[in-house]
């Protein structure tokens, strides 16, 4: 934190996405949140793409082969809006984040950068936070948008498009930014994802 430091825009996905690891660690240590075991990467599937049409084999390679592989388990599902989800599961949040990054990175490196939409993490509030702003058990999604290289919180209140808890999201966005998460500055870009399949 320099004297005149501004929120610099990170140059790559890892610089931005990795901030979630530190923030989660900090908040979990405070007894405020706990992460779900699952996270997802959503992208627009392109069958013409050599990598994407063999996605299962490719992901097996990147997640299981080689030293330091996280061996995070994954499944592939298509939603009713024509998008494909890679749903990853890992009890270790650190590994989960690196696997999410790895999956997105692999798709991006193989001519799919334009297809990548978002990475989605799910976290729960476990304690009473500050002045009871967040109730215990509150489920939040932290959406990372690849085109913006930034996160924003998403707290749906229903499955229908538009059903979300805006005041809580705005507050959470501010709090998470204070803790060091790279947050999308423009609220108009905080688009929701209703019906997350995990």
């Amino acid at each position, binding site marked *: 934190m320099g004297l005149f430091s501004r929120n610099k825009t990170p140059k790559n996905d890892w610089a931005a996405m990795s901030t979630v690891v530190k923030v989660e660690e900090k908040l979990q240590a405070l007894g405020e949140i706990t992460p779900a075991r699952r996270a997802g990467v959503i992208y627009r599937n392109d069958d013409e793409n050599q990598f994407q049409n063999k996605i299962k084999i490719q992901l097996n390679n990147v997640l299981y082969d080689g030293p330091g592989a996280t061996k995070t388990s994954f499944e592939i599902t298509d939603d009713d809006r*024509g998008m494909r989800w890679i749903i990853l599961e890992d009890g270790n949040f650190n590994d989960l984040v690196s696997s999410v990054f790895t999956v997105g990175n692999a798709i991006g490196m193989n001519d799919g950068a334009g297809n990548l939409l*978002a990475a989605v993490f799910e976290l729960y509030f476990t304690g009473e936070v500050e*002045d009871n702003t967040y109730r215990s058990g509150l489920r939040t999604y932290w959406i990372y948008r690849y085109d*913006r290289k930034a996160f924003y919180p998403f707290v749906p209140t229903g499955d229908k498009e538009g059903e979300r808890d805006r005041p809580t999201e705005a507050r959470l966005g501010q709090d998470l930014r204070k803790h060091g998460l790279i947050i999308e500055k*423009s*609220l*108009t870009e905080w688009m929701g*994802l209703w019906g997350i399949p995990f």
Partner: protein
Amino acid sequence: MTSTTTRKFHKDKGLVSRMYFTMFMLGFLYAMFAFFLMAAGMQLIFVGGIVGVMVIVQYYMSDRLILMSTGAKEVSPEEEPALYKMIKLLADRYEMPMPKVAIIDTSIPNAFATGRNPKNALVAVTTGIQRRLNERELQAVIGHELAHVANRDMRVLAIANFLVTLTSFLMTMLFWNMLFGGMGGRRGNNGGGLMVVYLVTIIVYFIGQLLVLALTRYREYGADHTGSEISGDPGGLADALEKISGTVNTIPDKDLRKLQTANAFLIIPAALKGEGSMNLFSTHPPLEERVKRLRELEQRMRYGLR
């Protein structure tokens, strides 16, 4: 008392000089206008007298007028102990007597202070703002409002408003005068002369209005500054402003997947839109500017730089 109190605070020199310049311009405009009216043969004392009485009534009764017009209810320390404690603490820091405290029962988040001097001050908050803000944010907001009282902004604005009120009064009078040719026309002004007076009045009115607006903005920044020095927490005010400004409602209804599908047909991807377009069409530039200044002040205060 307050003039010496405020002197203790660090002042934003650029802001102060701009403020004085605006006040000077306003005074200059006022004098020019008076000169013009007298040259045109109007009974300035008559017109000025009526407006003066109106402004003085408004000035001296501002707290009661506001209580009446907003439905604010004055509350006792027993009814609102926490709020009283918070305001007392801040008033002590301003070396100001404890102001009257009022509550407005509405979900709209707002707060204001009024009173011609610190002895006659009133601070009002809505139940909406009490619910929405946490203690730190509410304290910063009340600090800002008390700064208006400490800086005697009511007096400054009352003087500034005098000209605008006067000209709008004249505008109406002249309009009816031209229409029916009665009232002040007994000196035998011809229609053309009146037309010129009317046009000049309109011009003075608009320039005066702009200057008052500029002055209001400067006083607003000034109160942000003084209030932050008193509360020691510019960030609290910035948080509160963001929270109550309604920017929350700019969080969209739209699903992210729609954006991507739409983008497939667009040449400019979402990544290239962003901040620039936000600034261009933003509806609240003054608020953003205030928050920006407060965040910068927060940085400076944190590192002890002035």
